[in-house]
Every structure is written in structure tokens, then in C-alpha cells.
């Protein structure tokens, strides 16, 4: 049994302009000890997906589907039950280390609170444990630094504190939502490495949510690529980076500026803009920006699945790249949740 099994997860938001479907029927597993990367650009739904699982959606959001964690469905838990799991069995690291720490409390107070709450440790035990964790994330002189306030730490150091806090209760699953995005390049590399090493050392599973493909290449074992609320491709890290099937994945990889490319290589952008979630094109959501789009893309593309679990949501054959001859029938309508009907194709395409 996988550690986390997510089925048909759908997240919708009620907005002034109507319902917006941010995540549309997602299925995935996280196995024990693996690092799963969820990759996508802003608006792809990757963060909301995790917020839904953790019961942290904004007030106007609602989620349906199931998320079985060690056999229990997180989605049907009461806040009280969730509170026992969050921070203890599942920990999260958020993007912004500046705003995720309480500026009024010392690092010690914030760190020991977690273990006192979840594990019932005495203050001095909790403190010793916190110091140990700070040392594990390589904060120099942790006995002294634990007495300080967040503003006395640099951005990179604060993110280390966040990681240490996440690891305090030895969680089974660590969810890291863009852990290095707000940091400087030189520090990004350090944080990505640190997370990778900590994952390797323990048998902890990790979900890395990011748009940083280099971080994915460095620490993930499996990758889910999302676009406009859907999964477009899944595969092992080697599949995704060396043999990407979906035109979106291919475009994304080609658009990353690389230090190891020749100086004359042009930078290849994906044309157009991400679709408005309230006004999604009918058929394939990537169609308007896809350089390989064909007529068939006007209807919903099939999800192709290989024996090893690799998937691609596209009319192009995963193996050959040829257009599939007989489009597989459309996905069955999901029941139970309101499925937003795709609107007419967006009229504004930008050259």
C-alpha cells in the first residue's frame, strides 16, 4: 500500500466571477521513501492540491475526492483529527521563510511548541531535540542561535529553521511547497541539497512542489507535470528529463535557461499565455500554445498509460510521437462533483 493515495481530487473556488476549478480530478500515489515532484507553472493547481489534502484551503475553496494516508482518508477528517496528523506525521515547508515564522517568538519557542504539542515532551527535552534538529540542518552554533528571533536570521537560515521544524516529529511525509523559490541562487542550491540529503538519510517520503526543474532533477525520483489543473505527464525523473512525451513538458524543459548550453543557443519560449481557468479551451487545455497541435486536440485528449505507470495526456503516441490513429474515447464524466463544462475556445491568442 502506498503511503498516500490520492483519488479524483478536485478543488474548486467560488469567486465573484463564478466557480473556478483549480484542480481537476487528480490521481496519484506517494510510496514510502520516495520523493515525488509536482511540477507546473503558476495557476497549474499544484499548491492548491496540497492545501486541499492538508485541509488548509481558503474559505471559498472546496475539495472533493479522497486522500488515503496510511489507510485513513484525510479529506473526511475533522479539523481536530487533522491537527494530530499535521506537523507530526505530515509536515509542510512553505515557500516564504520570511512570513512563515512568527516574528514575536524566539526560534526556541516556535520549535519546542511543536514537540510539546505532538509528543508531550518536557520543555528541556524539547529544547535539546530542537537544538539537535538545527544542527542537522547545519545551523552553526545552534545552542546560541535557538534563543534568537527570526529577524536575526538570514533568508537561507530561516528556511533551514523551517526545514528543521518540519523534521522535528520525524514525519512520514514532508510536503515542501517551493522551498527554495524565495531565496538567492547560491542559497537555493544549498537548500535543495539539504532537502535531498535529509530525504536520502531517512525513509521519509517527500512531495516537492515546484516550478524549478533543476531542483526536481536533483532530488526527485518521480515527477508529475501539471498544466491548468490537470496532470499532463507522469514518469520517473529520467523519463521526464531525457524522454519527455508531452509537448508541454518538452516546451518547459527547452525554455529553462541553462548554464551548460552554448552561447549561441536561442532561448526557446512556449508561445502564448497560460489559459484562464474560468475560460478553458475545449479539448486539450494546452492546445492554443502547443506547437504540435492537430485537429484532434479539439476534443479531450486521452490519458495514455504504460506498463511502468508512466502517463501522458495527449493525442501524440507516447512511444512514437505520431498522432494516435483512433482517439481513445473521452474520459467518463465524473459524478458527485460539479465538473465545469469547458467553454468555447479562448478567442484571444497572443502572438
Amino acid at each position, binding site marked *: 500500500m502506498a503511503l498516500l493515495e490520492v483519488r479524483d481530487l478536485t478543488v474548486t473556488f467560488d469567486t465573484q466571477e463564478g466557480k473556478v476549478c483549480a484542480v481537476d480530478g487528480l490521481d496519484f500515489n506517494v510510496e514510502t521513501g520516495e520523493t515525488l515532484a509536482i511540477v507546473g*507553472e503558476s495557476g497549474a493547481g499544484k499548491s492548491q492540491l496540497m492545501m486541499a489534502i492538508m485541509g488548509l484551503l481558503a474559505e471559498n475553496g472546496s475539495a472533493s475526492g479522497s486522500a488515503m494516508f496510511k489507510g485513513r482518508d484525510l479529506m473526511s477528517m475533522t479539523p481536530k483529527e487533522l491537527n494530530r496528523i499535521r506537523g507530526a506525521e505530515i509536515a509542510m515547508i512553505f515557500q516564504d521563510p520570511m512570513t512563515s515564522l512568527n516574528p514575536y517568538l524566539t526560534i526556541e519557542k516556535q520549535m519546542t511548541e511543536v514537540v510539546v504539542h505532538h509528543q508531550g515532551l518536557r520543555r528541556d527535552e524539547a529544547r535539546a531535540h530542537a537544538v539537535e534538529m538545527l544542527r542537522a540542518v547545519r545551523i552553526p552554533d545552534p545552542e546560541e542561535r535557538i534563543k534568537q528571533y527570526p529577524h536575526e536570521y*538570514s533568508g537561507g537560515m530561516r528556511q533551514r529553521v523551517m526545514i528543521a521544524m518540519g523534521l522535528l516529529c520525524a514525519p512520514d511525509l514532508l510536503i515542501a511547497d517551493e522551498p527554495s523559490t524565495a531565496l538567492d541562487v547560491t542559497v537555493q542550491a544549498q537548500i535543495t541539497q539539504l532537502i535531498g540529503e535529509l530525504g536520502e538519510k531517512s525513509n521519509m517520503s517527500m512531495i516537492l512542489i515546484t516550478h524549478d526543474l533543476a531542483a526536481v*532533477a*536533483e532530488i526527485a525520483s518521480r515527477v508529475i507535470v501539471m498544466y491548468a489543473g490537470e496532470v499532463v505527464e507522469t514518469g520517473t525523473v529520467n523519463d521526464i528529463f531525457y524522454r519527455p512525451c508531452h509537448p508541454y513538458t518538452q516546451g*518547459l524543459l527547452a525554455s529553462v*535557461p541553462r548554464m*551548460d548550453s552554448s552561447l549561441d543557443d*536561442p532561448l526557446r*519560449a512556449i508561445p502564448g499565455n497560460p489559459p484562464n481557468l474560468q475560460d478553458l479551451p475545449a479539448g486539450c487545455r494546452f492546445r492554443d500554445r502547443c506547437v504540435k497541435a492537430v485537429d484532434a486536440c479539439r476534443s479531450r485528449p486521452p490519458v495514455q498509460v504504460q506498463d511502468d505507470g508512466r502517463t501522458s495526456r495527449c493525442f501524440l503516441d507516447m512511444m512514437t510521437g505520431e498522432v494516435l490513429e483512433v482517439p481513445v474515447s473521452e474520459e467518463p464524466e465524473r459524478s458527485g462533483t460539479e465538473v465545469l463544462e469547458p467553454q468555447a475556445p479562448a478567442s484571444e491568442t497572443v502572438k
Partner: protein
Amino acid sequence: MSKPVLRVQDLAVNFINQTGGIFRRRERVLRAVNGISFDLHASETLGIVGESGSGKSTLARAILGLIKPSRGRVMWRGDNLTELDEEALRQKRKEFQIVFQDPIASLDPRMTAGDIISEPLWTFYPNMATVQVEERARGMMKMVGLLPNQINRYPHEFSGGQCQRIGIARALVLNPRLVICDEPVSALDVSIQAQIINLLKDLQKKLGLSLIFVAHDLSIVKHISDRVMVMYMGSAMELSTREALYQKPLHPYTSALMKSVAIPDPKLAAAARQDSWLTGDMPSPYDPPKGCVFHTRCPYMVKRCEADVPALRHMEDGNRVACHRAEELDLAI
């Protein structure tokens, strides 16, 4: 070579920060930009790269006269901008414009795209006919890859990349000769970043602009710069041509920045992990290290680096570096 359009000479910006209570008032001086000099030629692109706190944005703003420099000169086609009075500087600003980092925050949400793009025209040419202004705004939209029929839309109706295109159109509407782009793509998605960089590159070629492109990542400026200046704690560490810098950086900090850009390739990323060595954080800017500012993080540090500040000096090939050991180090990639 032609005469440079912009000469920055020994430019410095200090911020004074007061701390302590009423009775223990203490002034701390933060040297955000510490004696930067460079020339920029017509149609040339200079990339300025450094970590946050390196002073790159402050430098950009000081060049435009948005921040008053504490020392030094900014010579713009013969005029010393630091000595001009406010009105004269305002008139000069037609010739140099800026594109900001946050594409959405830098546009007024209550103005339409057309209003935003034509505002500089109204400011500088109040007597221009409305029809003419609108025509010009539409032309600009087309030039930056927006549909002219979107002229009456508001910023929230555009995506981040499109908003940045509006910001670029606004910067170009007065036909400037120099555009300073302060991290114009940092807030954008990867697939859109490439679009904006390519757009700026095309426009530069078409219009013969001089560009200063500020970024925190060497991989971003690689595709657009003719020369690159690497900054650290307010000082220039290296100023080299693109070809030289990306093949054989002269300064250990440049080399460290290059190595810290992870490569999106699982095998290379694993190899690079062994190789990256830049540790620790930047020291406090209020208390910069003596001698070379980089010596606390530099693996090639020797005694001399702790005492003597290295000058930004010319090497044989015309590239410039501020490192005592530049000749003996081989940092080729």
C-alpha cells in the same frame, strides 16, 4: 569603438540607518553601492548580476536619478545627470526608461492598458492630439506582442507575462535610448521568461537601444548580454564580455555563481552537487569584511585578501576583475 552613451564613474550610494532609542541614537552607514564605474555604448546590453543585497537595483536606480548618489558621476551623452536640477533631469528621462520587476504591481490597476502606455506621452507632450496618442499606444502594443484591440482592458485581465509586455511598451513609448530592466523576468514563469527575454532582445536590435539588464542569476543574462558585470556587496567583482565570462570567469565569485545555477538534468545535477562549494551567507552589509569583501566565502583566500581591497583592474584581454589572484587562478568551466 564609438563614444559611450553612458559613463558611470565611481558611483556610490550610502544609506544611513538610525538605530537605538532616543537616548542611544546610533547611525549606521550601509554602503549599498561602493564606487562602481563602467561605460555603456549605443546598442549594447550590459547584464548586472548579483545576489540580493549586492546593490544591483540600487545602482540601477542611482543611474536613473531615482536615488541620489553619495558620490560619483553619471555622464549621459555629455551631461552629468547627478548635477542636473529636477526639471532638467525630468526632461532627460525621456531618453532613459525603466522596466520593473513585478509586472502587476508596477501597473496602476485602475488604468487601462492604453492609459498606462500613453501616460508618458501625456506627461511629456500634453498638446499631442488624442487620436495620435491612441495610435501610438496601439502601435506599441503591437510591437510588444499584444493585440491592439486589448487597449481598453485593465491589468487584471492580462496574465503576468502580458503585464510585463505592457510595462515594456510603457518604457518604449517615448523612444528612449537606454532602457534599464530591473529583474524583468524574476516574477514570471519559466516558459514566459524566455518570451520576455527574446522580446527584449528583438526590440533592442530593432530600435538600437542600449540595455542594462539586472538579474540575480547568470543563466538569465547569458542570452541577452554583450558584457556582464558581477556585483557583490556593492562592489564590482568582474566586468567581462559574455564570451569570456561564460567560458573562463576571472573571479572566484563569478565562478561560484555559475556553479550555483543548477542544471535541469538528473545526471549532471548529481555531479554538480559534489562540485559546488559556495557556503554560508553574505556578511552583514553594515559590517562588510575588511580587504576583499568576498574573502569570507572565497576558497582561494590568502592573507593579502584580508587586508587589501582589490581594485577592479584591466586584464590583458580588456576584461576587468577585482581579485588579487586573478592571474594565477584557472577557473575555466
